[in-house]
């Protein structure tokens, strides 16, 4: 036995012997894991009869995985934006401040807001232009897991990070209908998205340059509505064309190669190995809110056990369905309950493995794991007992190679090789 192996084995043995069920590694992992979930947005004021929130959008640098940073848009500096939690029936007021040089709105996807608050530019409101603040007011309903996202330049702005979760909890004093059936204490929100980082970069550059020109003309009262391709009706459009206006689809063309072709797939803004893990203990249920804020569908499969699908688009299902794979289409939300009935470390991944890649290279993307915090320590060791096996079986040396690698003491590893 080599000295390093001896020390590793000895350390493991002593910790295992003295602290047989103390999960210090998982405590560290759990704390570290917390940063992979969006912060809850605190109300700025609740005395006015409204739950008031402040949301701003800015242009930031965001690291998807170590070594890959992009310029992108972000609500309150995070991707996804902060999680908004309200109770059903709350009166909600959101002050939305635009700190970018681009136009934006917020659409409250799945909420039954007044139509003027729906966030569709030129259909329900004017865009929120640079340095402007728009106030959204609505009653929080219905109950469930929903999304908020920008609805201006949606093809770019959503994949560029302008999305987040808005959770409508039961009204004050009422119990959660899902919790009544599946008692749970912990829940996780996983917001999926897909990103063509090249498309994001190029489009942001074009938009930013164009908006500088437009802002100058607006400030001087010389802005022509044709610059936004904005017309009162078809006759207005035809009239503009007769005067020399060319609709963008007549002078430009995006081939399939030019359309967004995602090269990074994220959960809560991060790709594997930075994806959040689902921590669980034997015997407990955890609720996982699955949100697809991207444009790619995800076929999510859990190893080792089944889960219960308990809500669809926020609505509790009267007859929860037991599954191990669920299709999460763009714009959909599903709530699932995972029972802690099979201790271990289990992969939870998109079964369309093209979405388990970073820049097309596997593994990556939305790969993550269900991790039992209370897994016995020796079960979590990388190769338990391999050192002893090597004493008697030289053939075990190949498998034992991982013991030679510094730092590989517990599962799950981060593995980046195909």
């Amino acid at each position: 036995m080599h000295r390093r192996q001896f020390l590793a084995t000895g350390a493991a043995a002593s910790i295992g012997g003295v602290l047989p069920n103390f999960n210090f590694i998982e405590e560290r992992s759990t704390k570290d894991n917390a940063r992979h979930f969006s912060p809850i947005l605190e109300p700025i004021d609740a005395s006015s009869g409204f739950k008031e929130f402040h949301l701003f959008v800015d242009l930031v640098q965001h690291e998807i995985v170590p070594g890959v940073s992009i310029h992108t848009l972000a609500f309150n500096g995070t991707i996804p934006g902060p999680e908004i939690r309200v109770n059903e029936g709350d009166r909600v007021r959101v002050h939305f401040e635009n700190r970018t040089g681009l136009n934006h709105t917020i659409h409250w996807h799945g909420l039954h807001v007044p139509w003027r608050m729906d966030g569709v530019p030129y259909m329900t409101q004017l865009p929120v232009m640079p340095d402007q603040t728009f106030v959204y007011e609505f009653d929080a309903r219905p109950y469930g897991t929903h999304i908020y996202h920008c609805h201006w330049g949606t093809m770019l702005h959503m994949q560029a990070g302008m999305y987040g979760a808005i959770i409508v909890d039961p009204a004050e004093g009422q119990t959660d209908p899902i919790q009544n059936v599946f008692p749970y204490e912990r829940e996780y929100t996983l917001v999926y998205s897909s990103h063509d980082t090249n498309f994001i970069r190029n489009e942001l550059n074009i938009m930013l340059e164009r908006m500088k020109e437009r802002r100058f003309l607006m400030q001087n009262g010389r802005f022509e509505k044709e610059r936004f391709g904005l017309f009162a009706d078809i006759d207005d459009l035809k009239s503009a064309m007769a005067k020399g206006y060319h609709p963008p689809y007549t002078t430009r063309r995006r081939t399939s190669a030019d359309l967004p072709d995602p090269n990074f797939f994220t959960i809560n803004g991060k790709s594997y190995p930075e994806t959040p893990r689902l921590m669980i203990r034997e015997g407990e249920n955890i609720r996982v809110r699955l949100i697809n804020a991207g444009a790619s569908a995800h076929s999510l499969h859990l190893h080792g056990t089944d889960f219960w699908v308990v809500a669809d688009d926020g609505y509790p299902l009267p007859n929860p369905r037991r599954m191990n794979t669920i299709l999460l289409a763009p714009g959909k939300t599903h709530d699932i309950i995972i029972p802690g009935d099979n201790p271990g470390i289990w992969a939870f991944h998109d079964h369309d493995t093209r979405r388990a890649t970073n820049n097309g290279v596997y593994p990556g993307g939305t790969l993550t794991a269900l991790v039992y915090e209370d897994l016995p320590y020796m079960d979590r060791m990388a190769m338990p007992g391999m050192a002893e096996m090597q004493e008697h079986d030289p053939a075990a040396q190949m498998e034992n190679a991982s013991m030679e690698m510094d730092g590989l003491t517990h599962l799950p590893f981060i593995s980046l090789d195909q």
Partner: protein
Amino acid sequence: MKAPLRYMENYTRLIFAIALVCSVDSSTAQEFLPELRLGAMGVVSGNIGLADKKTASAVSDFSDSSVLLGARQQLFGSYRAQFVVGFQFPDAESQLGQVFYHHLFVKLSNQRNVFQIGRSRLDSNLMEFPTLRDDDALSYTDAQSPFSDGQNSEDTQFGNLVQFGRYLTKRIRLDLHGEYYSETRRREESFELNTAGLTIGYRVPESQRWNRHRLDQLVFGLEGFFSKDDPDASLVREVLPNAKLGVAINLRPDPVHFWRLVHQTIISFGADDVQEINTYLDATRARSLASFTSIEYVRRRLERPDYRISVGGGVRIFTNLDKNSGQFIMVGNFFRRIGAKFDVGVQGIFEHSYGDMSFRLPSNSFRINIGFIYAIEHVFNNQFDDRDSILNLEHGYIN
């Protein structure tokens, strides 16, 4: 037995060769396809010339039409590598053949540093002027190469280059460069250097034009031609320095009515012994001042150019000759955009030469070009941003 052995030996070599090729292929299969950039410009014109009451015409002049192909990729560190090859169609009677490879270089660059080696546009000028072709006013816009026989403009514009550039700020760049101007006068080509210089310039990146700065560019350059053994001039080594100053001012940086002025002055310090001009070489070695100024108006409609009108004028004065000598030029043009990056236009040029400069040039000449310009550029497999993008300039640089 030797024959089968030889057969086996050759067979083994073949297998080894195949294995090598396959291993190379498989090892590169997962690496990035470089970013590819294709650029092309077609300049076609019909020309009518009148020089000292003699007319000349060209029905189809496609000189200066060019093609550029570039590949670019991220290196393992912060640097990016670029390889560019390009060719253009030179002027008739240029003696450069059907095509001329005007670009062929490798460039390494990161946020601050740029290293470039190969053939490229030389620092014989600092500014670009709104003329139909780059060489329409070459005597006024470029320092004249003493190594050229004067048969073509490419000798002055393109050559072999070694350059190190350093961005002192996002807009100020210092360049140290050594060049080899083609020595067509001596019918020699070499990979050595015959020129060296430095350039420092303030330039507002194109992506920030709607920040609407008045001062767009301010550039200063120093350059020295190192003339070697020269049988024609009976000289053994001399340095012919020149200094250049260029400025571009956005007179009215308006997105609809855009006015811009560009000016450049070149002082060629020349050689003291040149007091009359009898040959092209004398003209390049004589002490002179060349200046060119243009004013252009661009009418933009719904975020694309509609038409452009520009007028420009230049003078070239020789200050150390026995006879008062020089030349001046007036250029005016109008271009209308009739399709994406497709322009049609007309240009008129009047040029007057006097004193010793009339030895090879007509006293008065007038030329009209009616032509089309079609410029295309496309990037395939784009995978990273440019240093001068708005995102990198205004929202933090990303390697």
